[in-house]
């Protein structure tokens, strides 16, 4: 994987917020233009920081345009979908359009999208976990000729927590089988109720043949991979991304270390086979 050659791996680059969109009460999508271009792939993450607040790992939520060239103003655009989870992310949420974030990356292994070529693709997301999966679906739509079918199972706590709603709509229109569900319905919702793992039958996927990409809360990941394995999906093709406390993103600080692996550099994307081998969940 291409590692950006810069002599100080901890030195972040300035990135202007060119657009900020509220996706739900506590999730916003930041579109930023960094001073220098970055080459990144779905599943990778950046360390995003504000001076004085700190750095947090955030996955890329957008697909890099193919053959994107250095534009006049600097690099091309990157999108980060950030949930207000605590101290740093709250301060990031205070940054408005025209303000700056500081980013370094991309770090980590990306999703092995090539596994999907010639197969069916199942995408399973929960809550904010849709963010890193969004570029996966975008890629699949771009490569739709080589992918047999795309199915998305997406769940959130309440209808208000479903993010990327216009994307969901667009994807459905483009032929993705979008299945939504919520834990708790509010007025006006008459869709599915319950966790995503109750909806396998609606995925219309041949599990033995497909490849799956999963991201969400740990409990959801755990039951999803177990179910899919049970349905006969090979453990190499059950692919998820894990979360850990991270301070450096480059395998030095030790926070993300788990069972001989650094989630930041050896992951965050892992197959079920690796998860089992290294006892990661």
């Amino acid at each position: 994987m291409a590692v950006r050659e810069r002599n100080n791996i901890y030195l972040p680059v300035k990135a202007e917020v060119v657009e900020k969109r509220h996706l739900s009460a506590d999730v916003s999508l930041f579109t930023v233009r960094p001073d220098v271009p970055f080459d990144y792939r779905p599943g990778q993450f950046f360390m995003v920081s504000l001076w004085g607040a700190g750095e947090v790992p955030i996955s890329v939520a957008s697909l890099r345009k193919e053959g994107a060239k250095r534009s006049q103003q600097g690099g091309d655009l990157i999108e980060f979908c950030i949930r207000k989870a605590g101290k740093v992310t709250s301060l990031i949420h205070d940054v408005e359009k025209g303000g700056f974030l500081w980013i370094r990356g991309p770090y980590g292994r990306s999703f092995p999208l090539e596994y999907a070529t010639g197969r069916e693709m199942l995408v399973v997301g929960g809550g904010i976990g849709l963010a890193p999966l969004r570029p996966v679906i975008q890629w699949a739509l771009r490569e739709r000729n080589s992918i047999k079918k795309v199915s998305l199972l997406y769940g959130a706590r309440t209808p208000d927590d479903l993010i990327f709603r216009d994307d969901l709509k667009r994807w459905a229109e483009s032929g993705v089988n979008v299945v939504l569900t919520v834990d708790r319905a509010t007025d006006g919702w008459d869709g599915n109720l319950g966790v995503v793992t109750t909806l396998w039958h609606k995925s219309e996927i041949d599990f033995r043949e497909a490849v799956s990409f999963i991201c969400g809360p740990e409990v959801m990941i755990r039951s999803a991979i177990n179910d899919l394995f049970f349905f006969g999906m090979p453990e190499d093709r059950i692919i998820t991304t894990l979360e850990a406390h991270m301070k450096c993103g480059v395998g030095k600080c030790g926070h993300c270390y788990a069972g001989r692996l650094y989630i930041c550099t050896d992951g965050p994307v892992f197959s079920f086979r690796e998860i089992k081998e290294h006892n990661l969940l």
Partner: protein
Amino acid sequence: MDKILTVCPYCGCGCGLYLHVEEGRLVGVSPSRSHPVNRGSLCVKGWNAYEFVVHPDRLLKPMIREDSSGLRECSWDEALDYVAHRLAEIRDRSGPDSIGILSSAKCTNEENYLIMKFARAVIGTNNIDHCARLCHSSTVGGLAAAFGSGAMTNSISEIRDAKVLFVIGSNTTEQHPMIGMHMLDAVDRGAILIVADPRRPQIAEFAHIHLRHRPGTDVALLMGIMHVIVNEGLVDIDFVRRRTENFDAFEHVLRGFHPQAVESITGVSIEDIRRVARIYAMEKRSMLFYAMGITQHITGVDNVRACANLVMLTGHIGLPSSGINPLRGQNNVQGACDMGALPNVYSGYQTVTDPRARRKFERAWRRKLPTKPGLTVVEMTEAAYEGRLKALYITGENPLLSDPDLNHVKEAMKGLEFLVVQDIFPNETMEYADVVLPACSFAEKDGTFTNTERRVQLLTRAIEPIGDSRPDWEIIADLSGRMGYEMQYRGTYEIMEEIALLTPSYGGMLHHRLRERHGLQWPCPDVGHPGTPFLHRKKFAKGLGTFITVEFRPPAELPDEEYPFILTTGRIYFHYHTGTMCRRTAVLEREEPACYVEINPLDAERLHVRDKFPVKVSSRRGSIVVSARVTERTPEGVVFIPFHYSEAAANLLTNAALDPTVKIPEYKVCAVKVEPVMKEDRRTRPVKVVDLEDLRIT
């Protein structure tokens, strides 16, 4: 790269540590290997003691309150002239006793001495006190009356040779970690460890016997144990006869504490009481330890007296590895008491009511001194509330977090005409201050600290003062000069010389002597004296030890229908006191970033509370919302809250009921109720991006 030996600023263990300095900056800490207490170890607070020193919150400049715009920065000259002027004016108008001074257990001995001299000689009042009132005044009161000296009788390094360790009301491994280390070593070497604590602190994991008596029943428990000792003929008769007095009166009272009765008061079984009595009495090298679990009660002094009686009864005192050991909380709380930062004594516990002592100090200080003992911390608050106290000068303390019944304290602070706060960081009390003076941290000054084993140790300046801050002693000396009383010292060693002259137990404590072998233990009456590792050898400090009779009194506030839980408060390992230093240390703050309440699983189930759920804890005085921590450490019917957090201050709940003798507040027992809090709806801004209609895709 330089390394400077100094003393840990946190707890009373007084560990020796090196501060690492690179280009004038603190870059780290390492333990001293040769130090008799820590021997190459430190606890997590000591290891991280370098970090808060340069925290951005440090106060850098003096500030004066402008009526309209709040505090504004000013020069030292302006600030001190103003303070001098206002204090003089208030003193002349309302009398010296309308001014109160709070000294600090975080300040050095030299500073405490100067602050107490300032109060008595310059202001002319005995209204001087510090937070030891809030933790160990019962010890000073209780042990002084029994033995003539209120300090740990043994050295920490003697612990490993003890055969029995009886630890009561102390979470030693977490609050005095390095003493806990020595205890563990003793246990590894075969000592029997007895822990008496209503909760289950870490040290109890290693205990051979853990007594979980009901909070506030310590006197009964100890009397029950002594009852067995007397009954079974385990008393050290020779010792009692030759070295103590008043035994008969005491024995008379003791008869009332039959184990049966004690069992029903304390909830500890007769068998356990008997076992502990036998083990403790029959082994010769038995050490008794206690901490705030004993002292912070309305019966604090009685608790201490009961402990003192126990060691006299068995003759377990006056020998190596045998004695009574109050574990003092703050790094220099022992020193602040020794230096007379108390309303009734000068340095070395020479009482202000004793004309001979007073005359000695009057001659040395060339001033007439007040004769009447002054007000204690809690009494000062009361006096301020009632308008009798007009001005308060606070150094290194934060009454708005540490004192009981905070809402009341706030009112009192508001009522003051003039409030000076001198500290290293902003604190809650500063909101009401008229003048704020920036002081130096431990890394920027010289002086001495006295640890809990009476070891007077040298502190060495490692870096230049941050900003315009100045060491407390310099500020006081400067201020004093502006009030017409010159205090000219070229360094802290000169102050120590004066202390040595006037304080018998510190007679030989000159700085150059303290530099070797990590200090000396008092009493050290002259420059030839090697210091005293253990006290009361052959003879008690006051001659005969006195059995003081005690009766059992229940806590001031007991649980009832409305407030069914007993609340007990305390410290936790990663934090310390009011949190000014540790909560500005990244790793420590990350470990325990928020306040919590410990509650027993059975109680939690009854209340439908789960781990990490928010709950509201209320007492008759206030309420706070904290997250629940469900744990067996806390017994049924009892909840525990650490008091380090200003955003959820446990002392909004505690009771200001005081011990009648030494006026220590009852932090360890009050009645509360606990209710689960429903998570308020987190949605504040409903977002409509796409109509739900559109989303009905499947």
